[in-house]
């Protein structure tokens, strides 16, 4: 297991460099000039432009820019945004908010998704199952922003249970509604995955044998059906952590949250290479670590999977 974990951590190195290089390259080749984008209608004097270009290394060749950036990155200097704030400062304010939002969403989709999927799988063909399928299909097919606006209108405006927008500090309780919106699509997928997996496992030979031992039905379901059904769900959750961070752009937009999604979106529009790349680099690391965690969880759930090799 240690050997495996070590190997996976080593694999992160090429992934890190590959991802940052690609992103840097893409931002570099975006059309438009970042400085004129920054100043808008009234372009500054050529001298000012040249000074800014030199300050941000924009006058150097692409590869040199990238290497200078990476060098700074490892010294803990993530550069500054074009508006003068340091990127690390922006990160420190944006990441905790998004992390809270993602964690809440993850808890909702995993908790409710597995529960609803389990019940639907046990009552296949009954009313609960049919409604769960219809609702999940709706959530998958309707775009997130529609779900977002509807919930915002119903709970925020009509019922007044929640704030329609989130304050700057974004405390946990204000994030509940956005988290529900963010979780909605994944919730639907988890319901369907769990349901299919549970109904498959219900027909497994070992479940019949367990019943023949004289164990109660609830125990057969929790001990012999549920645990076996979780492996595909865990896989999905691992991949989903990535989309929770990225997909948050829409949700953060609706509820006016100053999280990672919104910041990256703004940075891309402005062509702020260092900001985009730094954020993406951190996201890549989180994504890779999350998937490593999922793979280790696999082994815990299914003893046939061992990573000795």
């Amino acid at each position, binding site marked *: 297991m240690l050997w495996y974990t070590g190997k996976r951590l080593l694999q992160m190195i090429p992934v890190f460099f590959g991802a940052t290089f690609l992103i840097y390259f893409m931002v570099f080749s975006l059309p438009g000039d970042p400085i004129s984008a920054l100043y808008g209608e009234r372009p500054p004097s050529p001298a000012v432009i040249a000074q800014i270009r030199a300050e941000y290394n924009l006058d150097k060749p692409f590869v040199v820019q990238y290497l200078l950036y990476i060098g700074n990155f490892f010294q803990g200097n993530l550069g500054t945004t074009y508006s003068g704030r340091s990127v690390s400062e922006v990160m420190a304010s944006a990441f905790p908010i998004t992390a809270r939002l993602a964690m809440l969403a993850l808890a909702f989709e995993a908790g409710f998704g597995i529960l609803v999927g389990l019940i639907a799988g046990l009552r296949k063909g009954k009313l609960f199952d049919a409604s769960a399928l219809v609702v999940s299909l709706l959530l998958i097919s309707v775009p997130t922003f529609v779900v977002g606006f509807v919930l915002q209108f119903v709970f925020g405006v009509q019922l007044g249970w929640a704030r329609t927008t989130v304050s700057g500090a974004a405390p946990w309780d204000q994030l509940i509604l956005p988290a529900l919106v963010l979780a909605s699509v994944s919730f639907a997928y988890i319901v369907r995955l769990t349901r299919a997996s549970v109904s498959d496992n219900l027909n497994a030979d070992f479940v019949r*044998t367990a019943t*023949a031992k004289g164990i109660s039905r609830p125990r057969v379901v929790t001990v012999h059906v549920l645990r076996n059904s979780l492996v595909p769900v865990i896989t999905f959750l691992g991949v989903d952590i990535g989309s929770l961070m990225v997909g948050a752009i829409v949700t953060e937009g609706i509820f006016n949250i100053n999280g990672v999604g919104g910041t990256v979106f703004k940075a891309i529009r402005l062509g702020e290479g260092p900001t985009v790349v730094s954020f993406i680099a951190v996201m890549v690391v989180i994504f890779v670590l999350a998937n490593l965690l999922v793979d280790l969880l696999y082994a815990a*759930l*299914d*003893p046939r999977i061992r990573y000795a*090799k």
Partner: protein
Amino acid sequence: MTQLVNETVNQSPSTDSAPLLEIRDLEVGFRTQRGIVPAVRGVSLTLYPGQTLAIVGESGSGKTTTAQAIINLLAGTGTVTGGQILFQGRDLTRLTPKEMQAVRGSQIGYVPQDPMSNLNPVWNIGFQVAEAIRSNSDVRGKVLKQRTIEVLQEAGLADAADRLKQYPHQFSGGMRQRVLIGIGLSARPKLLIADEPTSALDVTVQRQILDHLATLTRDYGTSVLFITHDLGLAAERAEQLVVMYKGKVVESGPSQEILANPQHPYTQRLVAAAPSLASRRIQAKKNQDAPTTEIFSAGGTDTALIRRATDRELAASGKALISVEGITKKYRIRKSGLRYDELLAVNDVSFGVEKGTTTAIVGESGSGKSTVAKLILQLESTTSGRIEFDGRDVAGLTGRELLNFRRRVQPVFQDPYGSLDPQYNVGNTIAEPLLAHKVGSRKERQKRVLELLDQVSLPATTQFRYPSELSGGQRQRIAIARALALKPDVLVLDEAVSALDVLVQGQILNLLTELQSELGLTYLFITHDLAVVRLVADNVCVMQKGRIVEAAPTDEVFEKPRELYTQELLGAIPGANFEFGR
């Protein structure tokens, strides 16, 4: 074994004691969109305390459904639609789920068919056994662990204490079946339902496990309801037989009587076809010391098999068509890190196959027999040694010559479900080798397909059907027809009849020997089942752990087996204790 059976017979109680289990007119159906499809139609049987009763039938006969109905474990939409299941006078079909839960495990134990799929892969063995004990008693904590170890040791796992924390995938099939038997008997139930408990295992392991099960149930005074498709096995293991066919009981009574004097035509066919019994009969006939062997209407098939064997003996040229000299196959198995282990799958194996004869390679799983088949078919390359076909070394064959070799040596594999393309109709499947080797025009190929279908006794209309519409036996006939398409000299039959029901097995074996004498084919027959060998083979090579431990003509192997291992294999054929001359 004879002694053991006799003991149980002596112990069997007189019929005036109350029956333990009495099934009356049981009807079970499966709910479908077109109404209820009956699977069990009016089955009645009676089992007394301490007795063993076997239900025999082929797949689809309703034997497993009957057994599962007893403890309400019917699959999917199955429901009891009529009749009674009286267990100690109580009708089990009327129990509430809670009451049924109390009966399961503690009153009626269950040993399922397939040891590979019947243990939950994600829980360790100790947990799964302890769970069974917990749910049927108040034993907890240290005592529970002690009891778990005891249960496993009784079931034949000597090192149980050290293996509690291991998972099912770390156990062999035989060991897993022992665990399942331990679970089934853990609460000392009055009745044990054993549903084909050893069908998935090697013959010698099957024998060990059934012997052990017999000892345990005798010691505990447990009645056993034994479900099997093998009549020989059933008769050997149970004093009472119930023969089921299409959801109905066609015959029941004491085993020896049914075997000696089958009344129903279906039972007669079963007795005639079951390879285990047929091999015993042929052995008896060959020995000649059994006065009358024609006690079954079955004699016809046996005589034909013996006659064909004699014909082959006379026709044998004495020249080897295939000759194998000292072949060895090593596999590299990756271990942790960059290290490799070497596995010697085939170790210095030599034998020859004469034209027009059948050579059987017998062994248990892992003995290397299938690897030998792959090496001869040139599907894998040998590590060392030499394989000659018709006087030429096959190792160096390439291009046209290899193609030519493949045309003359054709395989038939075990699984008739997996070896046919479900998207191809039968005609295309059979014509495919012709197409691949560019033989004949479209018309000629079509003609050849019909000819082949006729040879394997299938109607011409079969060519338009798809594998999913056919039974296992029909599919295996098609696989044989496909192998014969190119008019090969040699068929390599890798467990070609192992996946089939006994009746179908008998038919296919008969077909194979018929085709052999008609077409002058040479067979290399790979199997784990010595009973089948007796029916078709002229020479036998017994393999164990990659080596040939004994090679001799079939008669010699059956009459005077030299090696202990061969003797064990022979002893494992069910039906050893029947007297055919009676």
